[in-house]
């Protein structure tokens, strides 16, 4: 279905990533947000709190990130599309409710504008060091979706994608920004509402008598209902059966957890978004995501001037990880070069997927600013030797 | 004559004794019999005293007992 025009600020704008993100959420149909202030993400909800009263929705500032990350889920079960935003320290507090959203299959969006860590770290400076936390930070086995924009335009576009994927797969989706992308101001084109595709909630058409809250459809995703519709349904973070009732057996656990993983992992092909260039004859492939991909672009250009056949693979979807794609590439390239604003996180996945077929060279950075193109170039030259 | 009736679902009972203790007209006592879980459920010892007040039903933490007021027969209403 098309976007509700009330939330769409069609036109050409000059926006930073945080503000573009807010416009993406409004265009995607988000009508509820709960937040707790934290640099460098706060501008997203500041704009939302200013915009939403004239669009028709609610922003509430909660007492902490624990509250914000569960209030949005209450709102979702009340019928709204909802999201929250934060940065590292707040993201740590939200882990509890990322797990709850996974387990209860509550569609919602978490936006993490990454800054340097651990702990309070570098509040105003960038990092990409929450990538593994996004993947594994809540306890238990699960899969979820994480997207990584590298420009304000993409902050707008991918926020919509994040909402759409969360609705289609009934899963929390992480939008993994960073301080530079959040505060970078560029041209952002917002299309007309009828040009924006919005995924509706997978609301059941069954009657209360026929409906089972956790009975999966063919793609492993159950249909949903909201409170107040006469279904008298139950939702719990405990291991539950198709009725939604707690069931403390290894059989129920096995069936549920495997389904929660496979509905995401099995749809990797549909969820995966990548930007690829020059992969066909590449000897070296630079794999990057988010702000680092813009530095990598310069390094790739410098390497090509020197006659090295360098391919570019930008991960827009980071989780689920494109294991198959890397495995295929590994069989025909010499090496992968992986710059990240962390000391080596996503590179571990590339190493694992490439196996013994290709070298993997990490270009680590502890955060605080971005790489110099030369750092990445040196790694490419090393790889091409 | 009794104004009410008390109904007991023996299998749900865990023999806490709340209903026996707080019945205002002392209709109940714990039985010497066991239910399948090994608890002694209450039984009615003075049915004629039941007022149907349902205090037993409000106290019972196991949803195993309740009282209701008897509906007079149509013939009694006509009189």
């Amino acid at each position, binding site marked *: 279905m098309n976007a509700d025009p009330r939330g769409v600020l069609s036109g050409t704008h000059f926006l930073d990533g945080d503000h573009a993100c807010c416009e993406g959420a409004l265009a995607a149909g988000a*009508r509820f947000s709960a937040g707790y202030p934290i640099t460098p993400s706060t501008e997203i909800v500041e704009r939302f709190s200013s915009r939403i009263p004239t669009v028709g929705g*609610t922003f509430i500032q909660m007492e902490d990130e624990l509250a914000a990350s*569960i209030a949005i889920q209450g709102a979702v079960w009340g019928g709204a599309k909802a999201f929250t935003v934060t940065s590292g320290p707040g993201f740590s507090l939200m882990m509890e409710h990322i797990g709850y959203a996974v387990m209860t299959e509550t569609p919602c969006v978490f936006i993490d504008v990454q800054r340097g860590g651990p702990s309070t770290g570098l509040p105003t400076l960038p990092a990409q060091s929450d990538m593994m936390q996004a993947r594994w930070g809540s306890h238990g086995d699960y899969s979820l979706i994480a997207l990584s924009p590298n420009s304000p335009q993409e902050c707008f576009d991918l926020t919509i994608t994040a909402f759409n994927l969360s609705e289609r797969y009934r899963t929390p989706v992480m939008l993994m920004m960073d301080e530079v992308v959040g505060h970078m101001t560029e041209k952002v084109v917002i299309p007309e509402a009828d040009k924006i595709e919005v995924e509706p909630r997978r609301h059941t058409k069954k009657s209360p008598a026929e409906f089972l809250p956790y009975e999966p459809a063919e793609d492993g995703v159950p249909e949903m209902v909201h409170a107040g519709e006469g279904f008298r349904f139950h939702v719990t973070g405990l291991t539950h059966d198709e009725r939604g009732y707690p069931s403390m057996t290894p059989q129920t656990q096995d069936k549920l957890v495997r389904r929660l993983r496979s509905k995401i992992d099995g749809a990797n092909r549909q969820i995966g978004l990548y930007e690829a260039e020059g992969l066909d004859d590449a000897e070296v492939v630079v794999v990057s995501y988010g702000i680092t991909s813009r530095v990598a672009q310069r390094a790739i250009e410098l390497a090509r001037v020197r006659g090295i056949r360098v391919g570019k693979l930008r991960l827009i979807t980071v989780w689920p990880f494109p294991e198959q794609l890397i495995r295929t590439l590994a069989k025909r390239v010499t090496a992968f070069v992986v710059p990240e604003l962390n000391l080596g996180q996503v590179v571990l996945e590339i190493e694992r997927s490439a196996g013994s077929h290709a070298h993997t060279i990490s270009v680590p950075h502890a955060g605080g600013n971005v790489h110099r193109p030369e750092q990445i170039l040196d790694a490419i030259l090393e790889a091409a030797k | 004559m009794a104004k009410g009736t008390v109904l007991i679902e023996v299998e749900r009972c865990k023999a806490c004794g709340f209903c026996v203790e707080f019945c205002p007209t002392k209709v109940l006592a714990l039985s010497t019999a066991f239910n399948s879980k090994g608890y002694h459920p209450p039984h009615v010892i003075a049915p004629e005293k039941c007022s149907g007040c349902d205090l037993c039903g409000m106290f019972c933490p196991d949803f195993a007992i*309740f009282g209701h007021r008897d509906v007079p027969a149509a013939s009694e209403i006509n009189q």
Partner: protein
Amino acid sequence: MSVTTIAPPANPVERFLRTDRMPHIWCPGCGIGTTVNCFTRALIDAKIDLDHLAIVSGIGCSGRVAGYVRLDSFHTTHGRAIPFATGLKLANPKLQVVVYSGDGDLAAIGGNHLIHAARRNVDLKVICVNNLIYAMTGGQTAPTTPGQVVTSTNPYGTFDTSFNLPHLVEAAGAVYVARWTTYHVRQLSRAIAEIFQKPGFSFIEIISPCPTLYQRRNKMGDGLDTMKYYKEKSKVKNGAPTSEVGLDKQGEIIVGKFVDRARPDYRELMVNQMHESLGSRFIDPVAAECEEGEPQGCEEGLCS
């Protein structure tokens, strides 16, 4: 001659239960089931539309209530029932939202949410079953455990000061505050019925036995002994200053309705503020929904 078949009377609580989940997990002599009886009688007496009622629990023995009642029910994470309920209520103001949980859940791990929801005066009906201990995990000291009580983590007796919950929530801004025990079934049922007529943040504390982990460890008898203690030592003092209703190990229990006051709730404050600042540019989310063809909100006058 016509024959009328009269259905046998059913336990009034029955239609509110997920009977396929019975028997419940609560111990013999536990008071939580008693509170559920009072809650369901209140729903009947207050003529609550069950299709527009949702119940939210946290974690713990009392947190299991949501799973046993046949309503739209949410068993959330530990301590977070109130912020979940806040989101639910604000996204769908047509719902009556009840938070039903325990003292450890609401006042310890969820203590921050409790005071802030009371401060905001979110329209939530909070029912706090206070058994003075963490029961589900085996009887550890809770912030409500009175002094001198032996617990599994204070084997030589507790010594730190406990929370007086009515005083706490009154200070934080609740518009209705009452305390009853599981002995006071009629009063409790009436109090719950009453808060459904009361917009804003209402809080009812129910003192309830945990014979397995509190009374037994403290040689205070079983559930029935505890109920007799409540009967003997409770004193009804409606309007009592909440600063004077703190609990100790074996002393008097002051019960009654302590606070009943009016102030605008969160949504009313928000709508008024937005109207004042934005005038006709403000779009009430409920009104926005009506335009999309869901007229229920209008019937209840929420758009006006």
